């Protein structure tokens, strides 16, 4: 039942992103709601389930873009794997960790995408694209992660602020 809720939410987020996206643009930058959701789910769920979910999310983007099919899915699952592993070992999965994970995850995801999608083929200026697209997008996604965490918590009927501790004691 929980996963049906997640996948329904994924479809809703996807439709919002594709239909209403233009209305959310700040300085021409569109937030990546799908990745923010995938990060949030990876903090709430076990690793394998989160990976399957992120694969579905990535494939959804690939089906929509129909460029290098699979690139988004591939980057997405590796990003979620990293987030999931690091969080499980060192951090409590709370709203602060969700924000930081989404911020850095977006930054790495988009940088890798920029490299494989454009720079590798001689298109686009890496530094300018990083400064004017990736950096604002990462901040924007960080803010969006709050909303996503709230929505997912409500969906699971969980408290939003269970703990604000960031580091696990046994992480050393």
């Amino acid at each position, binding site marked *: 039942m929980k996963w049906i809720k997640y996948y329904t939410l994924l*479809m809703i987020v996807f*439709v*919002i*992103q*594709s*239909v*209403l*996206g*233009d209305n959310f643009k700040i*300085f*021409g*930058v*569109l937030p*990546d709601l799908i990745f923010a959701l995938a990060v949030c789910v990876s903090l709430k769920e076990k*690793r*394998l389930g989160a*990976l*399957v979910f992120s*694969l579905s999310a990535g494939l959804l*983007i*690939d*089906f*929509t*873009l*129909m*460029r*290098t*099919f*699979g*690139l988004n*899915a*591939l980057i997405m*699952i590796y990003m979620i*794997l990293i987030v999931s*592993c690091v969080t*499980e*070992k060192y951090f409590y999965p709370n709203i602060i960790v969700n924000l930081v994970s989404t911020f850095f995850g977006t930054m790495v995801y*988009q940088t890798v*995408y*920029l490299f494989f*999608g*454009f720079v590798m083929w001689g*298109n*686009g*200026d890496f530094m*300018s*694209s990083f400064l*004017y*697209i990736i950096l604002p*997008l990462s901040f924007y996604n960080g803010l969006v992660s709050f909303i996503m965490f709230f929505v997912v918590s409500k969906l699971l009927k969980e408290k939003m602020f269970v703990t604000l501790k960031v580091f696990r004691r046994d992480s050393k």
Partner: protein
Amino acid sequence: MSFFKNKTRAFMIITTVILVMFMAVSTLPGNVADTTGNVFGIIITPVQRFLGAVVNIAGDAVEFVFNIGDLDDENDMLKEQVSVLNSEVREASELKRENDRLRALLDLKEKKPEYEMVASNIISSDIDNWYSIFTLDCGSSDGINVDDTVITNDGLVGYIYEVGYNWAKVKTIIDPASSVSAKIERIDTVGMCDGDVLLKNSNEIKMNYIPLSSAVVKGDMVITSGIGGVYPKGINIGKVKSVSKSSDGLTQTALIEPGVKFDEIGEVFVMKKVPLDID
């Protein structure tokens, strides 16, 4: 690698291999991904169309509320004017705009009798920050084909790069992977209009390979040259905003402001090629 549990490791390896294969295969035409994408498009298009309609209704409602406020102010200032007259004027101006649009379309249709114009609505737009693509609510069932040109009465929008049964995807001219052979109308100079990752967000493109000897100036109109075979000749692209030397110093590069406002378009026309009756 100790933190990889077995199931996770198996999942990652199998998925990576499959996705890499998909990435390689997706560069070929008519592949599995195309078919799957078509099925996905058939399912998602009605949902997007419905949500697009809901958004339009909500937008109209908000606009309506604002208009009521405007009309109230106007009524306070000009008590003699009745709201009926106002709505008539508004209706007349709307009809004029409609008339201008249809006239432009008719003009284009007369100039290009080999094309049939198919009106279509945009049901979804950009999903990320790198590409400029959108989905239309018409597809192969309406006779739309890959490489059909998409326009508005303001000019060139792009071309159809993928078609499903009830949807079609348009790659716009501001997409970083887009290239249009163009001509500066006043001086008859040919160049290439290319999309750019950074210019995409400001709805601009650049025209490359303009010879140094060409006297391009701000405000020059840029149209399609017809070279390349995808876009018909003579469609408005936009106007020159500024001109500079290219990085290698051998040619000039012009910054072009497209005639189409990509953030604002809702309805487009697909130029469907029709066989001419020779008799």
